[in-house]
């Protein structure tokens, strides 16, 4: 599944967090640096978030990115995605 052109990475991340993150805060308004695990995300839901992002962008997180800190905030996820081939042109 490819995201619509108008969908920014930020909106995609927040939409995926809404659908899969099981956060106790509103993912659409949570601060970029807020700790998602403190906001209720579990290790299991972080895997769901990872798989949903991979499906949406047709990418795969490499092994070295399979760590808790990569999914700890919207900023961290955005930074990780920016390093993946195929997502560098997205805002």
């Amino acid at each position, binding site marked *: 599944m490819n995201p619509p052109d108008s969908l920014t990475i930020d909106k995609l991340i927040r939409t995926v967090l809404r659908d*899969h993150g099981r956060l106790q805060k509103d993912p659409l308004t949570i601060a970029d640096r807020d700790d998602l695990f403190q906001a209720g995300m579990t*290790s*299991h839901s972080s*895997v*769901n978030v990872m*798989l*949903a992002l991979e*499906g949406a962008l047709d990418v795969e997180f490499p*092994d*070295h*990115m*399979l*760590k*808790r*800190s990569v999914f700890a905030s919207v900023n961290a996820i955005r930074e990780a995605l920016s390093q993946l081939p195929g997502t560098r042109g997205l805002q």
Partner: protein
Amino acid sequence: MLKTVFAKFARTMGPELLLSAEAARAVVGGRRSRVGIDVVQVSRIAESAARFGDRFAERLCTAQERADIAAEPAQAHERLAERFAAKEAALKAFDLCESGIDWRDIEVQSRPGGWGLALHGRAAALSGDSATDVSLLLSHGDGHVLAVVAAAAARPQS
């Protein structure tokens, strides 16, 4: 601390867990010990399997683990939940949550009389001498799976 954690879960998951706690204590003995615990809700694992299809299990499980799960189709979600909880417990026990570990480098093995845990690749390399005498304990209750990974280091506690 460990006793408190086990007692907390034992209140909700029953006496089986108390036996597991004793087993864990027997394993770690007087040597440096590592313990990791994880709890997952089986229905949430089932949701993930439904949402992501085969990719969920393929990303998390080795070919042998998937074969073991497929061998019990009526209990597939519970078996998958066991693997997930065990891998997360192992990541915590060996302090690998920030190491970038492929979940498939931590393999749950069904052995006669219980479970085993095999570490491969970076998981094996980074866990060092902590990966000796690894014990995996799984407990079930109220739609949840609890995994405890206990390991004793090769060297005695100094």
